[in-house]
């Protein structure tokens, strides 16, 4: 289930942030960008945002809704939610293992 993000390559990280952002509801480009920057504390450029959106849309992890004026919202699909859950679970397990090992080393 983690493969769809794995094959996205260098856009996997921004894609994960975008999926996480859309997990609370549909958002258009600017709202996604602002939310991802708030979640990650990093910068998300417009070129990277749309490169990731195009990949996620092509893989059926998100879908475009009817545009509101020129702003088109995107929402998470069922597949996208499953992939996000699997990714976050993997990260959680990784973090738990890492913290346990760090604790053992002290």
């Amino acid at each position, binding site marked *: 289930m983690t493969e769809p993000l794995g094959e996205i390559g260098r856009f996997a990280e921004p894609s994960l942030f975008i999926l996480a952002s859309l997990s609370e509801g549909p958002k*258009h*480009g*600017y709202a996604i*960008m602002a939310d991802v920057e708030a979640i990650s504390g990093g*910068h998300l*450029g*417009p*070129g*990277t*945002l*749309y*490169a990731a*959106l*195009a*990949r996620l*849309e*092509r893989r*059926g992890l998100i*879908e*475009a809704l009817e*545009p509101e*004026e*020129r*702003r*088109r919202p995107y929402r998470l699909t069922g597949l996208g939610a499953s992939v996000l859950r699997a990714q976050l679970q993997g990260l959680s397990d990784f973090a738990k293992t890492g913290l346990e090992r760090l604790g053992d080393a002290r």
Partner: protein
Amino acid sequence: MSGLIRLYPAAWRARYGDEFEALLADRPATLRDRIDIVLGALDARLSPQVRSAPVARRVGVTDRLAGGAAIAGGLIWSATYLVVWLIQAEGDLSLPILIAVGLMLLSLPGTYMAAYARPVAIGAAAFALSVAVLAAELVPWSPLLVLPVLGILGAIGPGALALAAARAGIAARDRWRLLLLTLPWPVAGFVVTIAGFVPSLVPVPLVIASFLPLGVAWMATGLRIARGRPTSTIVTAGGVA
């Protein structure tokens, strides 16, 4: 900023262009964002996620008229120069060449580009300028005025044609084909004018070698149009066609 968006492929712009511009209107791009957009455009070209697919289109009267005129124009154009070359004919070639140029100029901009150019005003302007060029050719200009007047019109008219071709709502390959057909016109017009005044400067074989392919190319394009091409395009949203 719109200049940077133009770096993206046409299919990408058709799918994401509006919302991308809206995003940049909401949050003006910094220098870092501009670099990111350039890299994004490069990625969109190297790893296209959105493609356009040709769509079969009904061949209408417009297509048949435009195609037929382009074929006839190209045929008369090529035949005239070929006859000159084969039988070394000397005489006034202005009438057949004028008819050929008229047919060619009126075919694509008049009945085709005007219908498919975006916005329509560009196609209409190309049509109007083509008519103006044709009309100017019929006026008995004094030798002092003929070069500047026809030279300027000969550059503006084909320039508008090229612009209309560039903005036509047709497949990219066909757009390039039309551009290649329209862009040589200013050069062709200049050479013909010079040849008319100082024939020794432009040898006939050179003129024929230069202009025959142009006529053949117009015939080929006319045939393509009359058969229902160039094609319009659709953009595959979120998928590859």
